[in-house]
């Protein structure tokens, strides 16, 4: 099971309406994105911070720009 969000974790969401299953993210960041069956994208919404470079590659490589990654820290207010 993937770890919960917390310190040292990135936040990712993919717009699966936009996603066309090009699978470019899977090549760029295979630990965080995978295609199942013909075109179902499974991704890790909370990858560890050390994968940031790979996630950034995936985001850039997406032909339909469906991947969002939180760029900065939270605006502070807990929780």
């Amino acid at each position, binding site marked *: 099971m993937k770890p919960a969000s917390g310190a040292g974790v990135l936040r990712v969401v993919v717009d699966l309406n936009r996603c066309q299953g090009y699978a470019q993210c899977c*090549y760029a960041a295979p630990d965080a994105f995978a295609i199942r069956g013909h075109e179902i994208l499974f991704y890790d919404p909370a990858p560890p911070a050390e994968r940031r470079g790979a996630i950034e590659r995936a985001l850039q490589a997406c*032909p339909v720009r469906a991947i969002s990654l939180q760029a900065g820290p939270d605006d502070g207010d807990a929780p």
Partner: protein
Amino acid sequence: MSDDALFAAVMDPANRADPYPLYARLRERPVSRQRDGSYVVSTHAAIRSLLFDPRLSSEDLPPPRRPRTGNPLKDLILNPIKNRISATHRPFIFRDPPDHDRLRSLVMREFSIARVQALRPRIAQEVDALIDACRGRGEVCLVSDLSYPLPVTVICELLGVPRADEPRFQAWATQLATAVEPDARHDDATRRQIVGAFDEIAAYMGDLIREKRRRPTDDMLSGLAAPGPGGRKQMSDFDLLSTAVLLLVAGHETTVNLITNAMLTLLRHPEELERLRADPERAPRLIEEVLRYEPPVHFRTRKALGTITVAGETIPKGAPVILLFAAANRDPSRFQAPDRFDPDRGDIEHFGFGGGLHYCVGAPLARIEAEIALVALSRRLVAPRLAVDPPPYRPGASLRGPEELRIGIDGTA
């Protein structure tokens, strides 16, 4: 120049270095009928719409014909059979669903994430070796020193083609790549050369495939040639041959343009080269912007299977349709300041690898090669500058890129 002659001007080698003003004029009509009856589509919205339109066929090329030989056995029996085979077993980029989907998915299975990832260290090693070989020189030619040999080595390794054999089919590959250029289809002599090159390269590949079947190795060709479930062939021998030739040619003729165009653009924007040097993590966004700004493939041709209305224009059934990706990439109604090279633009939804069903199979590999090459070049070429600008271009208008790119350097680091 009249509007219906604009694409002929695009094809003119004199406009190779800067076709963008022509593209801007073409975009004034998103779908522009040309004198030869073809329809050029040049805006982002219209191309996006057509890329997903199932009425646009990729089986657009007329079946290639072998030239007459005077030998009745060949002219009356063998070559007509070969012609029919070439027409029905085209490479999958010239095929439609469902055949296209079946062949492509078999290729994708072999073009696995693990296999592509495993090439990273090999690519880095090869890039370093190629730059090492430039030591002590005051000038390099990027095309012959790096951006041609690198992808060729990589595709040979991936497919399992002995690198030492490469000089044998280099000329054939170049010849075959002209098959995507529209003027090639009008010109009988060129068509014959294409067929001839295909027959030569197919003979070579046929031998190699037989060898892979006898002694399989860990590469794509062995994987594609291996029996599928139930011991049956995954694809017919003819399809396997055309697929193998396609992958080899595509590996030869496209990534070279991506790397060369990227370096040319960076040398024209030295501040970006400097930023990359300081921060290699900029490479991915930089490559996407190159794919928008100076894409390796400028257009692809399709055929309308029905009457299609797009952007208020009607394309009649049977008409050739030219999807001018490179013009859409600079469409001001889609991109802010499209003629500015700006890797930090948030929105780079480009057609640098095409789109839809035929989205470039090799895109992930091209990205890796370009990233490793550009980062290494930015760090290892000392004080690089363009020796000639614009550089001379290769003849292709679709597969467009410099013939050579001479870069003055103060040595290598």
